[in-house]
């Protein structure tokens, strides 16, 4: 019991810190750790991760807004597209092979990461 609670707190701290610093959800850290360390099933890890991401996103977004780093109109535009995309993505997931998808996303992330790092 005690060990698992300590591990949970450490997972939350790591995911929260990186998510807040980078402006991302933290799912990329949460899902593998929930599956690998806390031994949740894959679909349970996704659902649990989303709930944690909610508790990361709210305080982080408010903090950014207090620093003056927020554009609420843009939030609404992106959220409109994102909500449609998530529903479509969940349906497409059955048809698109996961490995090819990871390969596509991985290549895309490395390329975008280099562009962002160099500041082109």
């Amino acid at each position, binding site marked *: 019991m005690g060990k698992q609670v300590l591990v949970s707190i450490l997972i939350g701290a790591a995911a*929260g810190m990186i998510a807040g610093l980078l402006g991302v959800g933290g799912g990329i850290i949460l899902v593998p750790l929930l599956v690998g360390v806390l031994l*949740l099933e894959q679909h349970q890890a996704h659902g649990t991760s989303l709930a944690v991401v909610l508790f990361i996103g709210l305080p982080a977004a408010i903090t950014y807004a207090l*620093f003056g780093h927020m554009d609420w109109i*843009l939030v609404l535009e992106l*959220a409109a597209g994102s909500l449609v995309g998530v529903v479509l993505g969940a349906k497409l997931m059955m048809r698109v092979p996961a490995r090819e998808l*990871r390969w596509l996303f991985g290549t895309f992330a490395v390329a975008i990461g280099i562009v962002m790092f160099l500041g082109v």
Partner: protein
Amino acid sequence: MSVAAAIGIGLVAGLFGGMLGLGGGFILVPGMVLLLSVDQHTAQGVSLAVIALTALAGAITHYRQRNLRLGVVLWIAPAAALFAFLGSMVAGVIDASLLRRIFGSMTIAVGIFMLAGSWPWWWRWVRRAKNSI
């Protein structure tokens, strides 16, 4: 025009998020910075707000399907919220160009991590090509 571009970026981020269960922020932030010329800090703040909204909708769906372990959320969420606040404070005081470099290096790391996970896929093709020679 920029409204259509913003909705399009959201759509792509949502698609990958829905299919892989992650990746929303790593598409949203570069999308805003590179295509909409939003500054790095604001892009990250907007990304977090969009992710919170999308996560709320997703979490409700998963909760109804009983794919949500509330006990685990209860232990992880307080530390996650506290450190998300601390991480945001650090981001808030960092210079924009440094923040962009940190974001870029982490995105490259995430990409390599994803490619490593999908490695058997292209390795199979390499082996098949070798055998056919």
